[in-house]
């Protein structure tokens, strides 16, 4: 059997889900017998590949760039996994929603800045008005809640997804876990 092509993606999140993924430690070697990591913040590929079997997506959709990325990921991925609470609920990034991006940027870059008061507008992508979970933009196949999902949760879930075995996610994890 040829190896499955696995991608991990980091949208608007704290990277904690990726840290927890890496916390699988030596079990990563076991997984590496079944999957190739073809795209991830921790590998060199800069462009999302044409064809991916499983994509783990951390983070909410908070900018025009995130929105473009998640649509591209969906188009080139067989199984899209929403990894962690930010991807699933918006979580901490969505706490700005009742306030709006203008007020947040003003507080961070004007009111609280002692020098060079200016709101970044080049290179960085424009923020969306509302931070939203990824399933509000594209179809999500598997939801793996947690902040972050534990290494054990990752291991159990990924093993089941790779083998096509049964997977009872609410028995493993919950919002805020």
């Amino acid at each position, binding site marked *: 059997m040829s190896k499955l092509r696995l991608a991990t993606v980091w949208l608007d999140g704290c990277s904690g889900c990726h840290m927890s993924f890496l916390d699988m430690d030596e079990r990563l070697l076991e997984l590496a017998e079944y999957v190739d990591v073809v795209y991830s913040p921790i590998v060199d590929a800069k462009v999302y590949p044409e064809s991916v079997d499983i994509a783990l997506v951390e983070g909410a959709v908070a900018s025009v760039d995130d929105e473009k990325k998640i649509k591209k990921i969906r188009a080139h991925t067989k199984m899209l996994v929403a990894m962690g*609470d930010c991807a699933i609920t918006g979580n901490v990034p*969505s*706490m700005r929603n*009742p306030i709006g991006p203008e007020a947040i940027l003003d507080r961070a870059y004007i009111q609280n800045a002692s020098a060079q008061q200016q709101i970044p507008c080049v290179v960085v992508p424009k923020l969306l008005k*509302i931070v939203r979970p990824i*399933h509000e933009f594209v179809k999500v196949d598997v939801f793996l809640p947690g902040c972050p999902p534990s290494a054990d949760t990752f291991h159990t879930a990924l093993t089941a997804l790779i083998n096509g075995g049964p997977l009872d996610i609410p028995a493993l994890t919950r*919002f*805020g876990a």
Partner: protein
Amino acid sequence: MSGESDVKTLVIDEQEVSARSGQTILEVARENEIDIPTLCHLDGLSDVGACRLCLVEIKGSNKLLPACVTTVQEGMEISTGTERLRAHRRTILEMLFAERNHICSVCVSNGHCELQTLAQEQGLTHVRLPYRNPELRVDASHERFTIDHNRCILCTRCVRVCAEVEGAHIWDVMGRGIDSIIISDLNQPWGESACTRCGKCVQVCPTGALFDKSKIGSDHPKYPDFLPYLNLMREAK
């Protein structure tokens, strides 16, 4: 003298049970270790049937009825866990999550929250409805406690415990429908209200909406079990 007609026999989930006249379906189910999920119900307080999580199916009725406020009748045939009921319960929980700003990961009740636990028990892994993201107040004017309306699910346990048990009735509900909000006194800051500082409302709150200021992180388990005992002691006097 109580006659035989005071005893009702009925069927819950294909199990034959007997009950005293006037008991609710919820009481009888729990006496027989049949689990019906609840959120606004709390042993020791009056029931209001607000959250609708305890809806059950009764044979011969095309309406779903809340088990906490429906009294048993002779010969009732009740189902508590059909696929239709489970689907409704999940939708109710999703609406609660979407209605306000519940961020479990940074909540003082994370790991001790009845809403969070119910979501997990009912198999909720995401919310299909768009989040409303309302702008809501946090009132920290009280010297000991805080109310964060972002986490309130309007179960009114705080209103009932303050009125029925403490006898102060500083909490109430203002507005209607989705604009409803818990207020202290006549919508005055909690710290300036006639609050007796007893803390019962904090202990009965199922989420992190009411919390003790001395608690940090998610180290805030709540202990509402005192209520039935307190009521018992008062009745015994």
